[in-house]
């Protein structure tokens, strides 16, 4: 399964957007994805891929590419400790 394609499909579906608008370089802000939309997309990804995305990783997902990269690493069982460390440095995600 192509993770990129699946992610784009899910974001487009949940945001009720045409999938052609959801490019790899698009940021959540550009796609009009607010904080609540973000958790909705996370939920859909978790359901689709049957996995749990830790909050620390989720906080870094602010563009389509970040979603694809993070998800790929989680799926491949890679070490995501650097992502978690990044999240700890980042400002709180609430309200953004």
């Amino acid at each position, binding site marked *: 399964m192509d993770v990129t394609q699946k992610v784009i499909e899910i974001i487009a579906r949940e945001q*009720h957007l045409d999938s052609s608008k959801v490019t790899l370089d698009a940021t959540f802000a550009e796609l009009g994805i607010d904080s609540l939309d973000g958790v909705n997309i*996370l*939920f859909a990804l*978790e359901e689709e891929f049957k996995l749990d995305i830790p909050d620390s990783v989720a906080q870094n997902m602010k563009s389509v590419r970040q979603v694809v990269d993070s998800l790929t690493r989680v799926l491949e069982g890679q070490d995501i400790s650097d992502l978690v460390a990044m999240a700890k440095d980042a400002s709180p995600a609430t309200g953004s």
Partner: protein
Amino acid sequence: MRRVVITGMGVFASTGKDRESFFANLLQARSAVRRITQFDPSALSVQIAAEVADYSPADYFPPKRLDLLDRFSQFGLLAASEAMKSSGIEFRDEERPRFGVVTGSGMGGASTFDSGYFNLYAKQATRLHPFTIPKIMHNAATSQICMEYGAQGPSLTTATACSSSGHAIGQAFHLIKFGIADVMLAGGSDAPITYGMIRSWESVRVLASGDGDPSRACRPFSADREGLVIGEGAAMLLLEELEHAQQRGAKIYAEVAGYGMSSDASHITQLSVEGPARAIRMALQEAQVNPGDVDYINAHGTGTRLNDATETQVIKEVFKEHAWKLAISSTKSMHGHTMGATGAIELVATVMAIERGMIPPTANYTRPDPGCDLDYVPNQARESPVRVAVSNSFAFGGLNAVLLIRRFE
């Protein structure tokens, strides 16, 4: 003292998806009670309700919006839309902090709860949809309406079971009267027709079974009444300070003149005589209206043995000999008991009775009960001028809300 008038009204209910068709059906004594279609009710002993029929949310809301709207919020927004349109009101940005919304809901996002818990318990889901909380919260409808119309003033949600929207409209009335706001959209919405909710009501043993003809199931004040019927829907009214309304040349439907509220403080389900009587007296007093001036009471009239007999006693207690002269009807016989929406739906019926000089009947009335011996306008609408009317809401939990409406002169 500031006066408060009604300058807009909207209804979205089983008996009509706008206020004209709603009132026309009431005058025809047409009940909307039928077999439940939102889920398969075969396993229930009570399989009927007053549903909003032929309703497809996608006809009214774009998909992205709909994701965040439980059925009760949808109904609330649809009733609000008609109320706002009918008022013709427009706001400048600086006026918005003086415009608020108060809506009542007894059950909140019942269908979202129901399907969520089904997934959780029956289907062993390990997580629930992230929109669950923003959809089920009781204030979801209020907040959605605030967002839709840019209402930035005092806004809140009342949850007093069957009195929710009576209280909502009363609180909105007082917010304007006492100078906190100039314009308030007030009413209620509920969509409690779910498997879990009907099961819960079933076990209280207050529901009419509707064996035979469901449309005849709810028979308030009739000797053969056998209980209430759950309904769904919404109604919203635009309340406005009188001078504010006159300055913009608004059409004035009626005046909100009195609001009484009280607590029985006696029993969690069984209403008292004293509590509701105090609420009615409080409304009369605020409006400075004598009991003998009241022409019409839109009764709480649920159709249970207990409510209708006790409500009759309440009316006699307050109105004395005038109790036999005034007209009383329960439109719940047609639109069912819509819980947190019922006070608002019935208030629209009350205001339209004043406006049109036509009193909607108590449908399905068959024969007098010695315990209910007043004039319940049985089965046939009555042409009669109505100058002053009272709308009763008495809730499980003993929290009562009574509104007094006067023809605007």
